[in-house]
């Protein structure tokens, strides 16, 4: 039995904890290129799970399957008690209100101001909120990320780190129960990357969210992970705490720390 197997066999969570997200036997291929193959994962309430893998290993495909942007070929995805793959369009919209998604490219609407970017999901889903409540929520989220002064600015006027913070504020605006982060620190300098990682942990503690974080930035992994999943050949090759994974003797795990 190699180290990876031993790590995977470790009891990773207490049995009484509630799984908010369960992925079973997920398979996704693009033509002959099998990206995910028999992938299994459970994410528990208030837990940050980091999915670690090489570029092109299928990390982003995984979270795009969870949110319904891609349809897997096989397997099941259960999010907050709902079978995502069985949901119709309206059902998918409803579950998406409970899931936040932070894009690698931030994906801020560049024709809208910061305020309009944050208001956009609320205006569409929280119609019972009056203008004062909407403004209060926008101000709360911008204060969380320390960028209240940018409220009337356009995304193009902001630096990369500021855009990432605004994107995080927009992700949190509907107060989701689960957040999916797609390489949140990629393209940022080390200081800003550290600030974003710290902010992610703070927001997780404040709003009690569960998260899947896609990353190969080891500083971000160390700062945010409750558990780490190493994705190799489309499978969860190793699962464990950051310390467990860090000490692994498995060559395919060790390469991430070299």
């Amino acid at each position, binding site marked *: 039995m190699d180290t990876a197997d031993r790590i995977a066999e470790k009891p990773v969570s207490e049995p009484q904890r509630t799984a908010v997200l369960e992925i079973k036997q997920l398979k996704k291929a693009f033509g002959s290129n099998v990206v995910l193959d028999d992938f299994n994962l459970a994410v528990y309430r208030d837990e940050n799970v980091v999915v670690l893998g090489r570029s092109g290993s299928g990390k982003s495909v995984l979270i795009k399957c969870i949110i319904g942007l891609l349809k897997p070929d096989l397997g099941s995805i259960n999010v907050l008690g709902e079978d995502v793959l069985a949901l119709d369009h309206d059902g998918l919209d409803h579950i998406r209100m409970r899931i936040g998604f932070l894009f690698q490219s931030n994906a801020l609407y560049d*024709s809208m101001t910061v305020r309009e970017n944050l208001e*956009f999901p609320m205006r569409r889903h929280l119609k019972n909120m009056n203008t004062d409540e909407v403004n209060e929520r926008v101000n709360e989220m911008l204060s969380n990320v320390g960028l209240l002064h940018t409220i009337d600015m356009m995304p193009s006027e902001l630096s990369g780190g500021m855009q990432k913070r605004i994107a995080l504020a927009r992700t949190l605006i509907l107060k989701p129960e689960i957040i999916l982060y797609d390489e949140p620190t990629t393209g940022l300098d080390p200081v800003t990357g550290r600030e974003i990682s710290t902010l992610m942990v703070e927001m997780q503690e404040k709003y009690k969210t569960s998260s899947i974080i896609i990353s190969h930035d080891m500083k971000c992994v160390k700062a945010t992970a409750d558990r780490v999943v190493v994705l190799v050949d489309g499978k969860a090759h190793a699962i464990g705490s950051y310390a467990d994974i860090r000490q692994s003797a498995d060559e395919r795990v060790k390469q991430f720390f070299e």
Partner: protein
Amino acid sequence: MQGKEVKWKTFFSETGAISQFTGWFFHEFLRPRYEFREFLRQCFVIGYKSLPLIALTGFIMGLVLTMQLRPTLVSYGVEARLPDMVSLSIIREIGPVITALIFAGKIGSSIGAELGSMRVTEQIDAMEVSGTNPYKFLVVTRVWATTLMLPVLTILSDAVGLYGGYLGINIRGVMSLDLYINEVLNTVVFSDVIPATIKTFFFGFAVGIIGCYKGYNSKKGTEGVGRSANSAVVLSSLLIFIIDLIVVQITDLMGLN
């Protein structure tokens, strides 16, 4: 030989994809939720902001057409028919087609580039994961706006073009505005105006749907955005001529020419 086969295959798959995209429009536009605010914003952006360019090109079109026609009509001794010829040319053919081509250049490329940029920067995906139907929000509103705004812009362009024609006549000769308007109104009948106006709805629809299709399906990063904008203009301009040809054939068969 193989290259030709690939080109035909690409042509048919592209035609099929555009047809499917258009079918999707008819499937989505009647179903709630209706994006009225975004539709009105697009009407403002597409219609109002195109006014100066459309008016200027319309004016130059009328002026130049008059100046080019004049020597020929003078040589046949029918200079007095200049307002009739100018008005018929502008209202039946040149006004709608030139306006639609300018519109395709300005709006088709801008829609292609905007949606293409939104696609490659994942803004369309962001809209989808926030529970908004991006096709309805981005495509349906823009296609409606182009379909409804182009006829309005064409009517304006025709009016400004006719005024250009009036000034063109007065460069070399003398004609009062009252007489010019009278001549125009005596020449132009409803069967000139109605088919010409109806076809502009189809022109507007073609510009909108092609611009949206190219942008919405943009690939390969920033290079793809440029390609989307460019091919949106080329394809919608080509479609404008094809639609024009079909409409002329139909009006001819109906005895309206």
